[in-house]
């Protein structure tokens, strides 16, 4: 059965992908049940998910998976049929079983060691739900015989040439036999394949033609079969029609009145059926590859099926569309320069072209977009495990699971989110007693939400715990030398200390949040995705971490600006507002460091031309233009530029190290005129500038507050 391309391996791989989908559906269904869904389809979906995993696992001989799935399925079937309704603990067990099922799937996929101890514990618990009466539904080995074994059967059968036996078979179909699509001719032919058969037809019950009613069985057959096959094999031919016919099989070999088979060759109404006497299952035919084997023609009907595409091909498409967008912008620019009337056919056509290009771009981006659901489901498991590890009752509430985000973002968000969720459970939430004494429900809540907001994806992790203990955070930061003693800091600044490398608030390092990995790693991961993370915390009420991510890694809503005759692009979403400077707006903080007055407050001023080395410092900022930028740490900064050119979507082109990419240069893009413009990361640019230290920034911010 082994093929040059090993289709089995391909199907096996596809099975594990399907398992992931089924596990997701399982999680979904269980969550719905947990929320009290009354929809009978919910338990059906849950049941089917486990059932399908079991079915596939059986086909690949994945015994531990089959065994566990079978028991799980049996329990779910009890729920489905209404004989069992799980309580809170039962529901919890279902979740655990789902988690374990997913572990088993992955262990089988990766040929890793299967956690059998855990299986046994959960199997026992599932048995507990079933009670005693279901004990007999044990999986019997022959039901789930691995595929590979049964393949050898035809050969084994073919080995000996046993003595022939003659059977007399009487067979009279009933009406139901026809109703189920069975066909006596087929049965007779199949019998013929077991050996040499003489078939005589008893038409005595046949009415005259006028009285004949279709599909009413009037006919009976008597077959004399000389075969090497034993009676069970003969019965097998009639397996599907058992109970739908009168059937008697008798061994005629030693019956005296039975004439030798040869004496009745040309009796009337006798059909001679010859077949290979010792080869009941025609293995040659089954195995013979046919030249027109139509794998493809069969797939035509599966119009709704999902196409799996190599990610590289999508990348290529995304790149091509990016070029199309650039080309279209260039074309539109040259048509404008040619002075064509806006009402000319060419300009109208161009407008349509622009619309189509945008649509294509959106559609292509959609290919890469995936709902965050799978990610959130993984987090629900993290919550279950983390809460069990620290002995807290925690409920995870998720919202916006259908929110779609670029696939790469989802993949690279898993680790930071896991860490944040564990943090929320471990550090964010108080223990049950502390909650009770402060009048909160003993069960803590962790919320995980996703939403689209003004062209970005906002993902929030929040807990209803005690909030950030700021005096303690400050104390630890001072002790660790992260901030100078006696420093005055705003609440937001103290909260942001959590993101400093080497900071950990846990009094004792728990084995849950782990050691070494801090929120600084989380922030770096988010930033590498073009995202930002912010903290909002209220004492006694809880803490919220808010992650803001670009919708896609391939396009950016940018503000195109000019600095010293160079064109630069800044992410539009960081630009709070644009200001034009008047006399006295810029004040010197100390030589080389300036602040700008913004509505009575002061914001540190940075000259992009100087930071990027395009030119020396300006003597006079009067009538200059500044962009007020929201930095990742919640602070603001003002960037001096020479002029604003445009606001538009740009296609991001990566720059690797071979480009001598300086800090703050995030990527590049190609503008409508074909020129390349660099895309800046303002926070990085300012961090690299280093001319104004955090202390100054803190000072400037306080001036804002009191100003």
């Amino acid at each position, binding site marked *: 059965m082994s093929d040059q391309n090993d289709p089995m391996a391909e199907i096996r791989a596809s099975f594990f992908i399907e398992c992931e989908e089924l596990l997701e559906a399982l999680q979904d269904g269980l969550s719905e049940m947990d929320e009290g869904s009354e929809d009978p389809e919910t338990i059906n979906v849950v049941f089917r998910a486990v059932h399908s995993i079991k079915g596939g696992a059986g086909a690949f001989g994945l015994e531990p998976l089959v065994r566990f799935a079978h028991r799980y399925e049996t329990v779910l079937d009890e729920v489905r049929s209404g004989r069992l309704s799980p309580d809170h603990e039962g529901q919890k067990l279902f979740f655990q079983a789902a988690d374990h099922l997913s572990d088993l799937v992955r262990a089988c996929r990766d040929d890793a060691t299967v956690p059998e101890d855990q299986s046994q514990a959960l199997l026992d618990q599932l048995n507990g739900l079933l009670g005693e009466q279901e004990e007999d539904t044990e999986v019997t080995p022959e039901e789930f015989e691995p595929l590979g074994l049964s393949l050898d059967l035809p050969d084994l059968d073919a080995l000996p040439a046993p003595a022939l036996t003659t059977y007399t078979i009487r067979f009279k179909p009933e009406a139901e036999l026809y109703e189920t699509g069975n066909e006596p001719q087929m049965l007779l032919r199949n019998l013929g394949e077991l050996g040499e058969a003489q078939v005589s037809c008893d038409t005595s019950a046949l009415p005259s033609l006028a009285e004949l009613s279709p599909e009413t069985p009037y006919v009976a057959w008597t077959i004399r079969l000389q075969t090497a096959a034993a009676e069970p094999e003969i019965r097998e031919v009639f397996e599907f029609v058992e109970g739908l016919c009168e059937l008697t099989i008798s061994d005629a070999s030693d019956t005296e009145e039975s004439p030798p088979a040869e004496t009745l060759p040309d009796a009337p109404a006798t059909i001679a059926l010859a077949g290979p006497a010792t080869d009941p299952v025609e293995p040659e035919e089954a195995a013979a590859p046919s030249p027109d084997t139509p794998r493809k023609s069969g797939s035509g009907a599966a119009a709704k099926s999902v196409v799996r595409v190599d990610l590289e091909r999508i990348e290529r498409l995304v*790149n091509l569309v*990016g*070029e199309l967008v*650039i080309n279209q912008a260039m074309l539109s620019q040259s048509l404008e320069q040619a002075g064509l009337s806006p009402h000319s056919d060419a300009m109208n056509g161009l407008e349509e072209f622009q619309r189509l290009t945008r649509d294509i771009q959106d559609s292509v981006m959609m290919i890469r977009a995936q709902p965050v659901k799978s990610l959130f489901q993984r987090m629900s498991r993290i919550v279950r495990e983390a809460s069990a590890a620290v002995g807290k009752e925690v409920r995870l509430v998720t919202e916006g699971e259908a929110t779609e985000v670029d696939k790469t973002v989802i993949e690279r968000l898993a680790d930071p989110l896991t860490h944040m969720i564990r943090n929320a459970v471990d550090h964010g939430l108080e223990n049950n007693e502390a909650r009770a004494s402060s009048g909160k429900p003993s069960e803590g809540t962790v919320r995980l939400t996703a939403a689209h907001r003004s062209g970005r994806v906002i993902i929030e992790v929040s807990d209803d715990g005690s909030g950030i203990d700021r005096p303690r955070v400050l104390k630890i930061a001072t002790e660790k030398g992260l901030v100078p003693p006696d420093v005055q800091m705003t609440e937001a600044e103290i909260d942001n200390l959590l993101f400093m490398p080497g900071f950990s608030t846990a009094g004792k390092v728990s084995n849950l949040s782990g050691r070494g990995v801090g929120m600084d790693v989380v922030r770096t991961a988010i930033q590498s995705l073009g995202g930002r993370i912010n903290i909002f915390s209220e004492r006694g009420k809880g803490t919220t971490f808010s992650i803001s991510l670009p919708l896609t890694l391939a396009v950016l809503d940018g503000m195109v600006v000019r600095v010293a005759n*160079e*064109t630069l692009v800044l992410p539009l979403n960081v630009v709070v507002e644009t200001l034009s400077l008047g006399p006295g707006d810029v004040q010197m903080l100390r030589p080389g460091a300036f602040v700008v007055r913004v509505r009575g407050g002061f914001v540190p001023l940075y000259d992009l031309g100087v*930071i*990027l*080395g*395009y030119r020396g410092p300006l003597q006079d900022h009067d009538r200059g233009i500044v962009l007020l930028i929201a930095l990742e740490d919640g602070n603001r900064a003002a960037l001096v530029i020479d002029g604003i050119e445009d606001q538009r979507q740009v296609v991001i*082109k990566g*720059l690797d*190290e*071979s*480009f*001598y*990419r*300086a800090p*703050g*240069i995030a990527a*590049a893009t*190609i503008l409508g005129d*074909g*020129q*390349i*413009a*660099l895309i800046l990361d303002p926070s990085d640019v300012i961090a690299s500038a280093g001319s104004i230290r955090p202390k100054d920034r803190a000072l400037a911010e306080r001036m804002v507050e009191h100003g």
Partner: protein
Amino acid sequence: MADNTTAKDLELLTFRVADQEYSLDIMSVREICGWTRTTPMPHAPAFMRGVINLRGTVLPVMDLALRLNMQSQKTSDRNVIIVVTLNGTLTGLLVDAVSDIVAISVEDLQTPPEMSSDPQSTVVRALTVIDDRMIRVLDLAAIVPSGTEEVA
């Protein structure tokens, strides 16, 4: 142009940089394009002229004269960019002009004499003589930054 003797197993693209003749194995040359304005990369070394748009790809361009520690020439429309490929990465090399494509045999290559004071010695992998002119054969791997090496 070289004559048609046998065993010409190496083709070189020869070009001028700061009035000197250099060459590269033609197999590493992807294309040659005209000079276009580069977008400078902030804080990059001086020989890194910036990036240009090569049909939708962002191409880093090096000033080969500066890279070879020679005086950079004033660039004009007559300059050309040789697009080379090394380990799958494209880089543009700004040169004064492309001269010729010559076929030589490997035996015609000479190892340059050891001169430790010569800053070019590490980037010139061989010398050859064509029509009485000395041509330097550049070692592309030594010129084009590979990954983390030499990054500013």
